[in-house]
């Protein structure tokens, strides 16, 4: 299965927020640490709700946390 065409800045944002652990972020958004790790490594695309929750934790805009990689067939 190819990785989703989405990249994210969760690792950087965690580092900038007092080196927040994956477990702390997981507890704040109500998922397991393994799910946060999968999202961070781009192996799993989170639901819209989880994506907004992550952005809310970091006090950032969702576009700052998740970036859509334009596909060749997509409109710009």
């Amino acid at each position, binding site marked *: 299965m190819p990785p989703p065409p989405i990249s994210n800045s969760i690792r950087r944002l965690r580092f900038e927020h007092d080196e927040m652990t994956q477990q702390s972020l997981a507890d704040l958004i109500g998922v397991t640490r*393994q*799910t946060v790790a*999968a999202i961070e490594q781009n192996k799993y695309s989170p639901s819209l709700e989880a994506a907004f929750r992550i952005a809310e934790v970091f006090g950032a805009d969702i576009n700052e946390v998740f970036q859509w990689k334009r596909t060749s067939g997509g409109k710009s």
Partner: protein
Amino acid sequence: MLNYLYIGFGLSYIALALMHTGPFMSMREKTSWVAVLTTLVIWTYYFGVFWRGALQGQIDGEAIRNLFIICLATSVAIMLGVTIAIAVASRRSMDAPPDELERQIEARADSVGFKLLELLVPIVLIGGLLNIDAVRTAFPADPAGSTAIIAANGFLMVIVVVELVREGTKIVLFRMTA
């Protein structure tokens, strides 16, 4: 007796190994490992004893029933005991609701398991019906009882195989996202 000791030691080792995987595996993945390994060990033993006897033309209904009850009780006790031990060791709730990734993985594993069930039930049913005469000839002392016991164990084997594949699928999907 020695067989039971080997099984006991083997499962204790698995429990200890899973308790020391720490945060690398979620509670649900560990539970799936416990289910797969316990099912493999205990039900392979049960079906090994049953089919060996059946192929030699010896089906002792009472002995099979007792073995079935022992295997069922042992597998439930081990799965429950090891899961509680892992939950205590990792300080995680045993009945925490699944998160979105776990729900997705469970749904995909259920779908695989259901498709396999749809495939295996007709195979066992048709295979059983086609071999009724052979079973009756092989067990002249109690043809009806033997046919019923073999059919019941055929369906039991389908349930065990489906459960193994379902839990195995979960493990593969958990590993793919790890």
